């Protein structure tokens, strides 16, 4: 509390504004943001935010590769939850094509997207607390993230750049014992979340720095186009999964946590609750997921390694491989012929054939060849579509324009944290310089998606 005397003292003192440059090479700015702050003592009078240090020309690159070739680039947008980007892009192109995917595929996508959302929130909350000095909570959360990334690795074969979805389906079905592994990972994650919540929620240092800092009202947040947990912490309950349901979200029950004050603490609490809700969604989805039309495997003969089958075919030894079933390499597990109808759309001009067909018969080979050859791949009709999904930071929208050629004419991403970053200067103004750290942390700025 300031006394009147102290205030008059300060008024008599001659103060000069100080210009402080923070970033881009500052650990709390994640290496890619520059804030030029005008300070009056410790108070921020003005802040100019500069972005663009991680611009890699995603939108330009998307115009020169084919439709499936964009998917690896989408991994690098929000690299903490790449599965949501994959899903958003693929669903946009599917809308452009006018095709739908099997129900099981929708469930698989939802499950993977929600696991991604948890990893994203864990990273965001963990990094914020680390920047406030709580290294323990950060390490705990990264430990929990590791359990979830093991799940992701099990399904997609990769941890970070997963490239799991395909236009018209996903790469492979869930592995056999996924449900059991998922249950175990969630058990561990819940333990960690309870532990971290115990460490932080009533921690004096943490709450003092989070409460009442970085406040934004719901109206202001909406006028800046802010969505996601950041908006919900301000009290507006907009969630794409509830309000414009896609995939199978309308069949799964979950709650949308909403804050009241719109400060850093509320954003922390909203994210903590959303992780729990995401786990609920995954559990419900795993319970409801249809078994899918798993075909009877045509194992009349012995399984032949795919490469060997190709060699035999080249030598004309057709009799040796007739009725045989090619065994593709282990990283392709789950994408075999028996699983194919449940994970991919029944549309030959969009989705690659199962590996056994690609290696084993001429129709499959032709289908594979035509889809992979440049200029022959997926070719949507002329048109433009916009499709939003709920990313970890808010509404992640893709706007794709097609001119009927093999590569997109224009791909535009609506990156959720771009809107939040554009409001950052407003969020910081009036706060202390030390409040910049939790506020910037709760923005969950992801450079890949911000700068594209």
């Amino acid at each position, binding site marked *: 509390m300031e006394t009147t005397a102290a205030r008059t003292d300060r008024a008599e003192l001659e103060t000069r504004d100080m210009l402080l440059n923070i970033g881009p090479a500052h650990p709390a700015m994640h290496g890619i943001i520059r804030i030029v702050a005008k300070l009056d003592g410790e108070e921020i009078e003005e802040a100019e935010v*500069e972005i*663009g240090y991680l*611009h890699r020309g995603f939108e330009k690159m998307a115009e020169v590769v084919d439709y499936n070739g964009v998917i690896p680039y989408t991994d690098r947008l929000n690299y903490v939850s790449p599965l949501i980007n994959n899903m958003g892009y693929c669903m946009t192109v599917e809308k452009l094509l006018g095709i739908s995917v099997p129900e099981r595929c929708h469930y698989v996508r939802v499950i993977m997207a929600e696991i991604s959302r948890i990893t994203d929130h864990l990273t965001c909350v963990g990094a914020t607390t680390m920047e406030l000095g709580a290294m323990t909570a950060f390490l705990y959360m990264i430990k929990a993230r590791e359990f979830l990334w093991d799940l992701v690795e099990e399904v997609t074969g990769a941890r970070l750049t997963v490239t799991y979805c395909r236009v018209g389906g996903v790469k492979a079905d869930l592995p056999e014992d996924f449900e059991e592994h998922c249950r175990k990972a969630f058990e561990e994650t819940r333990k960690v979340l309870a532990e971290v919540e115990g460490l932080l929620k009533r921690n004096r240092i943490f709450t003092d720095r989070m409460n009442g800092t970085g406040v934004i009202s719901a109206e202001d947040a909406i*006028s800046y186009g802010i969505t996601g947990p950041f908006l919900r912490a301000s009290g507006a309950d907009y969630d794409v999964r509830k309000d414009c349901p896609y995939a199978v979200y309308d069949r799964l029950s979950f709650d949308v946590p909403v804050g009241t004050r719109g400060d850093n603490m509320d954003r922390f609490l909203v994210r903590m609750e959303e992780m729990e809700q995401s786990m609920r969604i995954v559990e419900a989805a795993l319970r409801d997921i249809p078994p899918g039309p798993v075909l009877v495997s045509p194992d009349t003969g012995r399984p032949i390694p795919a490469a060997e089958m190709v060699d035999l075919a080249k030598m004309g030894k057709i009799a040796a491989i007739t009725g045989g079933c090619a065994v593709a390499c282990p990283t392709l597990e789950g994408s075999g012929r028996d699983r194919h109808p449940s994970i991919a759309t029944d549309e030959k001009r969009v989705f690659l054939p199962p590996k056994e067909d690609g290696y084993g018969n001429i129709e499959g080979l032709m289908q594979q060849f035509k889809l992979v050859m440049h200029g022959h791949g997926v070719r949507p009709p002329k048109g*433009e579509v*916009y499709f939003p999904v709920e990313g970890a930071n808010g509404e992640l929208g893709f706007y794709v324009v097609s*001119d009927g050629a093999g590569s997109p004419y224009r791909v535009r991403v609506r990156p959720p944290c*771009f809107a939040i970053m*554009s409001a950052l200067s407003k969020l910081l103004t009036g706060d202390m310089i030390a409040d910049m750290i939790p506020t910037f942390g709760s923005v969950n700025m992801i450079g890949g998606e911000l700068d594209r």
Partner: protein
Amino acid sequence: MNNSSLIESVTARFPGAVKASHAWRGDATMVLRGEFLLEVARYLKEDPALQMNFLMDLSAVDYSTFGKKPAPAFFASSGVALKPSSQIPDEDPWPGPPDRSRFAVVYHFFSMAHKHRLRLVVPVEEAPDGTVEGTVGRVDSLTDLWPGANWLEREVWDMFGIGFRGHPDLKRILMYEGFEGHPLRKDYPVNKRQPLIGPVN
């Protein structure tokens, strides 16, 4: 409000403003005359039946090479899904690029109260000397209505060189100050290299 009544209500309010409209794949779209943009945007935001309080996205498209890529003859019929999904509406045909002009600025609006979306397209003519830049700008800025438009318009300026009339601080955002050209234009080669210059202090 559904797509057709959305389009109808705006068309009825501003009879001269709407050049064309469609709802291909369920996305309500209207091509506007640029001079009506501010009025229409204000109407969308403030009308109680519309309440488009979100400016979700603002971007642009360079239509100069649209449909000019040579297409292989095989798969000529592709684009027609064999089994069109029943969930994706497909009543309206897509009328093609909005105008003969080179650029189109595309706005996506969303109403949180009514959960409807609308896309506005404003064609931007290229000036006779081949430029669309200039201090005046070709499209009205929406920064007064949505402060979030500020950065989005800066990005469009940066990537396409389309100026915005009334923008408070139109400068590059993703590229650096010394960068030459506008990278998302179709005539900017994808593999072009420029010397990287640090930020100007």
